[in-house]
């Protein structure tokens, strides 16, 4: 569904939605959130949850990147629905986001991120959220962003599998512009795979750190 169609079908106007957000957040806060430009790289258990949280609070510009399609095994933790299995995650997720708020600017890139396209893809984003699954890709994106865009804020995740204690998941500031969420050790093992509760916990650490940065708080 394209954005214009979503806006046509929306039961509430831009003004009504904005007023509701301002009622919760205040005018000053909402203006800062509306100016936000956040890229979310990877739309799995981390990225789909981060995108929904940021959409709900009205972050103005979201850039969603993923090359993959929704698989039935994703539904144990990722924010997709049975009728979306087989579709590109970028498109399926943007439909869900438009059901929450069709007035936000959402850019989709259905591409595989590699060393060679990082510099081109992330030019316009002020904050980059690493939300991949495979550790080699996580390391590649983090190194690439820190190398090409040392001035951008980067929030990454590592260690969220299974059902270990919630309290092991934390956010730490690795360096000036680089934040890391997760327990940093837990990998997926037999019987302790990736599951919705802990994946969402880590995703929400990422989303809240992004929110803090958008609102001027740089400490974890």
């Amino acid at each position, binding site marked *: 569904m394209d954005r214009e169609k979503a806006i046509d079908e929306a039961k509430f106007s831009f003004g009504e939605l904005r007023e509701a957000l301002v009622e919760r957040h205040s005018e000053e806060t909402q203006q800062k959130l509306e100016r936000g430009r956040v890229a979310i790289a990877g739309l799995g258990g981390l990225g789909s949850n981060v995108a929904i949280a940021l959409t709900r609070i009205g972050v103005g510009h979201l850039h969603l990147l993923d090359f993959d399609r929704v698989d039935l095994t994703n539904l144990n933790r990722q924010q997709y629905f049975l009728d979306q299995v087989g579709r590109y995650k970028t498109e399926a997720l943007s439909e869900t986001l438009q059901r929450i708020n069709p007035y936000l600017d959402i850019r989709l890139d259905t591409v595989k991120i590699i060393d060679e396209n990082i510099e081109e893809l992330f030019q316009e984003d002020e904050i980059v959220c690493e*939300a991949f*699954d*495979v*550790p080699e890709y996580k390391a590649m994106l983090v190194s690439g962003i*820190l190398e090409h865009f*040392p001035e951008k804020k980067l929030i990454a995740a590592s*260690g969220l*599998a299974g059902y270990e204690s919630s309290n092991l998941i934390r956010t730490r500031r*690795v360096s000036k512009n680089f934040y*890391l969420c997760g327990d940093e050790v837990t990998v997926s093992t037999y019987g302790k795979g990736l599951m919705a509760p802990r994946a969402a916990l880590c995703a929400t650490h990422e989303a809240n750190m992004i929110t803090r940065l958008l609102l001027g708080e740089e400490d974890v």
Partner: protein
Amino acid sequence: MIVNGVEKPLPRPMTVQEYLEENGYQIARVAMERNGSILPKASFAETMLEDGDTLEIVSFVGGG
């Protein structure tokens, strides 16, 4: 050197690559900052560590 906030001796002159391998890191899963700047993976093999270096080595685990 200071590695992830902990003081560690540099046992002998060695490259970043050698240091990571000897300490059990999987190079492809590592992102590393040296003295506050990212060190691109392509230069791991030719960058010599120095005794006063501050390293932040993040070793990613899977899951997302």
